[in-house]
């Protein structure tokens, strides 16, 4: 058992970056039955260390305000403020360009890859979080875009998983060994 603590007081032992495909689905999810994207998003900062960036959140906003969804920008901003408070933020725009693009193909410019790379390059700030996850639950890039992020593959040490699989991993945490 542990004492009550704030969201960033200690590393959770598992780090994840949620892709645009997950965050958009989380917003669009019904309450009942909730989709896996909504479920993993709700656990950000509580059960795992969530890392995000303005690049990802800008993309999510741009998708949700399109005529197809027509979400008022103020509502998206409110949600993002809360999600940001539950997450750690990195700044991919400060990382020299090229490295994230080295992944190649059509996905080299995806915001989630730049964000994941920025976490690796963040230095001392996120090192305790990454170190704890390295020795425990791992690092995950959570995406519903399984064409570009094939589950089980990884890049820069980030394992690709779907929201469903990531939720399963989270639920298994703390299950006593048989």
């Amino acid at each position, binding site marked *: *058992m*542990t*004492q*009550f*603590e*704030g*969201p960033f007081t200690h590393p*959770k*032992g598992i780090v994840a970056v949620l892709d*645009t*495909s997950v965050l*958009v*689905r*989380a*917003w*669009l*999810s*019904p*309450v*009942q*039955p*909730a989709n896996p994207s*909504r*479920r993993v*998003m*709700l*656990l*950000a*900062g*509580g*059960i795992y260390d969530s890392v995000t960036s303005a690049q990802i959140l800008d*993309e999510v906003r*741009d*998708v949700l305000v*399109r005529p*197809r*969804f027509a*979400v008022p920008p103020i*509502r998206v901003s*409110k*949600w993002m403020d*809360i*999600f940001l*408070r*539950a997450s750690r933020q990195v700044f991919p725009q400060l990382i020299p360009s090229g490295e994230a693009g080295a992944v190649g193909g059509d996905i080299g*410019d*995806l915001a989630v890859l730049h964000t994941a790379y920025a976490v690796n390059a963040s230095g001392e700030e996120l090192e305790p979080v990454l170190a704890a996850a390295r020795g425990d639950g791992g690092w995950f890039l959570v995406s*519903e*875009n399984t064409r570009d992020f094939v589950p089980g593959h990884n890049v820069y040490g980030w394992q690709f998983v779907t929201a469903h699989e990531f939720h399963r991993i989270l*639920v298994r*945490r*703390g*299950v*006593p060994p048989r």
Partner: protein
Amino acid sequence: MGSALLSQKQIRRLSSLARRLDAHGLKEESRTLREVLAEIENSPRELSASAAARILEVTPQTVRNWVRGAVLPGRKDRTGHFHVGLDSLTAALELRRVLPGGRPGALTEDEIDAEIEGVRTERRARAARGR
């Protein structure tokens, strides 16, 4: 239990309201509101495993596993019941408040992906024009 779900921000807003009631001479209303707020602030800052499970949208057993495994801050009381610190549920509570809750089956996966791809195509085109 319902009272414990007020956030600190909401409590501050209600405290401000009490002050305004006072300023308008509504002493009785202000006193009642202050008493209720005091009760809320003095109530245990924790929820049962079942209540936490509803907020986190998992099963109560998962919450118990998380508390037992120190994944989620909480405790087991003398009677064997599990409790979760309200602070560790704040983010999920706030996120649930702002999420709209769409209609089941309203959109297909392909429709969502097409909109995301649309944004990326526009961004790539803008970036290409800017070069």
